[in-house]
């Protein structure tokens, strides 16, 4: 029985090994390190050759937060996917959107979801919002070597904070973060245009419905000026992914609901292609 001495009371399997932390990433790093995304370095930068995810916007609303992402993935100048999903539910009250190398981003989102859930199940409580944001930061930092080779992943994290009864948004850079953002934030290639648009359309304390419309407008503005961001695809009925998080939890809007917002926006743009104008004074 000597070989099993480090395990509690005769347990055989290393799945019973307590790493001393409820973090899933740390456990899997000890148990099966090969499963963690991207801890190796590449021979040469891959840059444009792999699909990249593009624009995500997030904005706080009354009693929560809204996140929306376009559906396009690009490899250099060609569109590699039209119906990509880049906004992921992390747990009941938080979500993340990813921009950058799509493959690593998706895996990171999957790992992050397990990370939050694992903690919750082991400890019997949910991590605080800041705790969640910090965990994501450590994950991005783990990808730094790959980021330097062109496999950059930059997520955006949004959550409903029950202590403040409000939505919160966190941004990151390739080295980690988190940087808490007030009101709204956007990431990805079209983020400059989306942020400019949200700057004019965002209303403090607006209803979730109005905020969803503002986000859909911002994504359209991003697609308008950035070739890597996809606009709503009316012929194929591919709409942005929109998630609303309130005290009731995470809710991804159905295609029909998003279609309604997109149609409202498109009707307005038929007469005013640049979208609603903000009052000058």
């Amino acid at each position, binding site marked *: *029985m000597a070989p099993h001495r480090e395990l509690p009371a005769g*347990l055989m399997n290393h*799945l*019973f090994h307590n790493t001393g932390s409820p973090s*899933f990433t740390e456990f899997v790093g000890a148990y*099966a390190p090969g499963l963690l995304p991207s801890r190796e370095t590449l021979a040469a930068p891959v840059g444009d050759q792999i699909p990249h995810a593009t624009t995500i916007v997030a904005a706080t609303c009354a009693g929560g937060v809204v996140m929306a992402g376009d559906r396009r993935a690009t490899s250099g100048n060609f569109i590699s996917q039209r119906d990509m999903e880049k906004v992921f539910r992390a747990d009941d009250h938080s979500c993340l959107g990813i921009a950058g190398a799509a493959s690593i981003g998706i895996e990171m989102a999957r790992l992050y979801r397990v990370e939050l859930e694992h903690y919750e*199940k082991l400890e019997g409580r949910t991590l605080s919002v800041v705790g969640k944001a910090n965990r994501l930061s450590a994950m991005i930092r783990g990808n730094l070597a790959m980021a330097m080779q062109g496999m950059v992943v930059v997520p955006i994290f949004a959550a409903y904070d029950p202590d403040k009864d409000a939505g919160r948004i966190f941004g990151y850079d390739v080295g980690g973060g988190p940087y808490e953002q007030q009101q709204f934030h956007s990431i990805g290639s079209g983020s400059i245009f989306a942020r400019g648009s949200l700057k004019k359309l965002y209303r403090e304390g607006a209803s979730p419905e109005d905020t969803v419309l503002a986000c859909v407008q911002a994504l359209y503005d991003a697609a308008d000026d950035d070739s890597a961001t996809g606009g709503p695809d009316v012929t194929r009925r591919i709409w942005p992914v929109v998630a609303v998080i309130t005290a009731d939890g995470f809710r991804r809007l159905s295609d029909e609901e998003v279609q309604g917002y997109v149609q409202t926006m498109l009707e307005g743009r038929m007469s005013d292609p640049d979208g609603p104008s903000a009052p000058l004074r």
Partner: protein
Amino acid sequence: MSMPFGYASPEQIMRDKADYARKGIARGRSVVVLQYEHGILFVAPNPSRALHKISEIYDRIGFAAVGRYNEFEALRLGGIRYADVNGYTYDRGDVTARGLANFYAQNLGQIFTESVKSFEVEIVVAEVGDAPEYDQIYRLTFDGSVFDEHGTSAMGGQAEAVGGRLKERYREGMPLAEALSAALFALTEPGGERPTATQLEVAVLDRNRPHRKFQRLTGPRLAALLEETAPKAAEPKEPKEPEAGAKPETPPTAPEGEIDTGSGD
């Protein structure tokens, strides 16, 4: 035939270990698991809010245990790691109660044969399916035996008596309130008082929930459910009297004294 001093036959050792484990498990209160209309219901008398006997393992899988707290807690944590590692390696749908039950069976069996002291635990691993016929309930004993249960399962304390009372009241497709009432009927000694909301740990695997099916029923929701079942619980007192007269030696649900918090002693 001469025996070396201190010799005990393997049969004797196994029997002693099994007796030891059985005694430990019978000391605590029972836990019951049963199917209801929308999934699987777990009920445990447990006044502690922090030390759980019932837990979530994965999206569709729940866990219930009786016996020594530190031992079944180690099993619970190992099970969560097993499920999370597999779900992350493959796909969330590839984590099954059958796989988890096998994992536990291997380890419990190994511990029973190799360690000086076997685990004093009995556990249930239950998985809710898309329809009642796909629900699975596995009960595992301290020696690694697996029992594939149908409809109901009871363990710990006077498990046989509790299981018998549970089967008496159980029928397929019961609504939640009725299932809870059946569970409480089984867990309450004949003529005894039903545990209140604060003395109960109740959870469901509800197949209609999105993502994670496991949900604890606490506070107002549990109180409302108990209230709903209360009048029904008053009825059986009438027919119980002749029954009690016919079988006065009906075994009690659990020994006298404080309710076991699951923390061992």
